[in-house]
């Protein structure tokens, strides 16, 4: 029998008291696309960082093609034919493509002939795999999709036989994902082995031939992709059965609650990020705002929630003008008028992570009864309220005294959500509600949003996760380069259609 190209035996790794990897055994066959799926914090990235030599395992051994290798630094793993495309690209932004690729493998002290040779080799690789990269362009001028190709080319140039891709599609448009998958398939055809780390079930089903599931630092299952389905995988990931389809009935639309008229917003560098945007939201409706990160969604959300000044245009809540250029209600005043905001960056804007959970649970409402009386906080009432809310929103662990940063991403998000939903807002602005949140919590958060809608709230959902926008929204707007480039009713829309809009080509 041919020995597997990559074999991990009894890998253990701890960071302080946290055991990130427990007794991992994993076998990856040559020439396959092998998926590793698991929720955030399941230990996938740690495991792959060990394989890439960034961390050293506490115990265990790693074999490549039947031979044990010692990994002290990434250099060792590169020499063993392992390449990694990290979630955050490891590129120097003001260097050219070729400079980034030869970095560490220049081959000579003074640049000369070898660099020319490298260029020829790279050009050939680009043609073989249809990467279509201009080697002399500067990284900061490239789109995210192309930067990722540079990473792939980098590994190819260094002679990788095993490609580890860590959450490669998180930042891509659907079209870019298609392109990436094409490249990965052509790598496989050339006999390369691909390890795909992801938390997205669709990708596993689409691309892989085998899949391993990780949960809480352990490999809990291993199967051929053809022998499983999304529901089974999700169940293995979470440890219980999960509802992948939402209980969502037809929206019962009410009056227009929220209206945005010709809104233009600039960012801190004085660049116009939101350009003359118009839309309205009715009560009982979820309006989804799709788009690739950085196309003005953040600035729009900040302006709507009273954090950022409006350059021109106006915002109306129940026909009352709440903001224009000269007059901007602050977040507190907006709150009193029934607007709630779940910010995109929960750790920076949604929470004071050094505070205890019960403090964050009432933050912003802390000066109201029953939480305080005559400007003095009433800890007893706050704590009993907190316990009740944590029960209701299934925040784990249920300890209001725990420092907020010790909660997982999903539970932190539940803390924010419970705080914002508790006052029954008329209009709810939600940014990236499930970014970095595990499947179990996603299910819960989505259901809560639907419930809010059914109670008559108007909801603006800003998300870069297309699946999320599609499954929650009643109506979808697509934002590209600060403009609303398309509006669709959710019934008659496809991924592809939205993807083209998101890429600005439709």
């Amino acid at each position, binding site marked *: 029998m041919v020995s597997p190209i990559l074999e991990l035996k009894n890998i253990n790794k701890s*960071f302080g008291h946290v055991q990130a990897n427990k007794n991992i055994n994993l076998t990856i066959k040559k020439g396959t696309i092998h998926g590793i799926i698991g929720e955030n914090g399941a230990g996938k990235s740690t495991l792959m960082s060990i394989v*890439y*030599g*960034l*961390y050293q395992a506490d115990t265990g051994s790693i074999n490549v093609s039947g031979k044990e290798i010692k990994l002290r*630094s*990434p*250099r*060792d793993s*590169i020499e063993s034919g392992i390449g*990694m495309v*990290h979630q*955050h690209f*490891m*590129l*120097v*932004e*003001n*260097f050219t493509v070729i*400079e*980034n690729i*030869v*970095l*560490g*493998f*220049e*081959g*000579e*002290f*003074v*640049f000369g002939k070898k660099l020319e040779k490298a260029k020829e080799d790279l050009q050939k690789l680009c043609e073989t795999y249809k990467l279509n990269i201009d080697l002399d362009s500067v990284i900061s001028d490239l789109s995210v999709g192309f930067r990722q190709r540079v990473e792939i080319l980098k590994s190819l140039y260094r002679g990788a036989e095993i490609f580890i891709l860590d959450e490669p599609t998180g930042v891509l448009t659907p079209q870019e994902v298609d392109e990436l998958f094409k490249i990965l398939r052509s790598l496989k055809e050339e006999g390369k082995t691909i390890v795909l780390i992801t938390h997205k079930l669709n990708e596993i089903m689409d691309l892989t031939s085998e899949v391993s599931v990780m949960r809480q630092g352990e490999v809990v299952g291993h199967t051929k992709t053809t022998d499983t389905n999304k529901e089974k995988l999700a169940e293995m990931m979470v440890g219980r059965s999960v509802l992948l389809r939402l209980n969502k009935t037809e929206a019962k639309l009410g009056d227009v609650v929220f209206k945005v008229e010709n809104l233009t917003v600039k960012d801190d560098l004085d660049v116009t990020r939101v350009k003359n945007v118009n839309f309205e939201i009715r009560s009982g409706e979820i309006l989804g705002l799709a788009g690739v990160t950085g196309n003005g969604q953040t600035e729009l959300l900040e302006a709507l929630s009273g954090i950022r000044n409006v350059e021109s245009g106006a915002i109306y809540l129940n026909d009352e003008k709440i903001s224009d250029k000269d007059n901007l209600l602050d977040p507190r005043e907006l709150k009193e008028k029934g607007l709630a905001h779940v910010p995109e960056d929960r750790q920076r804007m949604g929470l004071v992570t050094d505070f205890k959970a019960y403090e964050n649970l009432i933050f912003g409402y802390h000066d109201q009864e029953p939480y305080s009386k005559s400007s003095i906080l009433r800890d007893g009432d706050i704590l009993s309220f907190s316990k009740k809310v944590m029960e209701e929103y299934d925040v784990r662990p249920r300890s209001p005294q725990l420092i907020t940063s010790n909660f997982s991403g999903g539970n932190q998000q539940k803390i924010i959500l419970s705080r914002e939903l508790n006052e029954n807002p008329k209009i709810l602005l939600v940014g990236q509600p499930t970014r970095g949140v595990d499947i179990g919590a996603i299910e819960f958060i989505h259901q809560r949003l639907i419930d809010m809608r059914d109670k008559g709230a108007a909801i603006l959902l800003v998300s870069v996760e297309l699946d999320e926008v599609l499954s929650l929204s009643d109506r979808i707007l697509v934002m590209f380069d600060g403009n609303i480039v398309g509006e669709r009713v959710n019934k008659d829309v496809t991924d592809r259609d939205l993807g083209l809009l998101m890429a600005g080509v439709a």
Partner: protein
Amino acid sequence: MEILPDIASLINSTLRISTPLIFAAMAGLFAERSGVIDFGLEGKMLAAAFVAAVGSYYFGSPWLGLILAMIACVSLSMLHGFASVTHKGDQVVSCVAINILMIGLTTALAAAWFGQAGLTPTLTDEQRFLEITLPFADALRDIPIIGIIYSDILSGHYVFVYLAYLCVPIVFWIVFKTSFGLRLRAVGENPSAVDTAGINVFTMRYKALMINGVLISFAGAHLSTAVNANFFREMSAGRGYLALAALIFGKWHPKTALIACLLFGFTDALQIRLQGVELPAIGTIPVQLIQAIPYVLTVVLLAGFVGKAIAPNAIGQPYVKER
């Protein structure tokens, strides 16, 4: 024709005054391009000046003094590296510590060894660097223009002056045309990219700091064993800070940093010339006001004219592997 010798001597002093600034700026360039802030140029320059003067005095050779100054400066750079690279301490604090320590230590040691607070004995001609007269300088003096350029401007400088102007193209070549330079720039921009390429980030930063120590020692030795014949208290007089300003003004690029150093050198040379000069209608400008020119210029340039100086992306951040 009377103005020509004046201009020649102004250019001559500009070249000389800029020399320590150039060494310091190039030293800073290596550290900062690697992602380590070097606010400690001032202290290291002072240390180099002191050690060079003392070494030359004891061993009778300015070259030995220079070598000792190099050792001292590299040690200080390593100390800075140990605090801020290995132990990930605050880089500015580590630099400030070096600066303060050196002001005190040089003064105290001078007092302990030579009985004079902050003064070392005057060096004889054998113990210091002398001005170098270029070949045929006297013979060519009478040729118009060329004579002035060659004999009055280029000839008659200390060895450090020539080294400084030689150093800039070499630094440029190393930083932009070699694999070491590529790694140096990368480690200051995105150390993770360097780490994942299998290069040790810490080693790179230490190497950069080592070069930094060598270069800054030239600046100090120039002050105490060439231009002057002894060390005196706080003789670096803010040149380390000025060089750092020139580096920022020059956007961390050797060529533009050189221009900035020359500009600062020129205003200083001009300042010396203007002292005591009577201007029509205004009269004599107070010396203090004139002496302030280079510093005022620094503030104005840094505040307004430079535009956005984009620093190396990872400057000031200790490298920690992501968790």
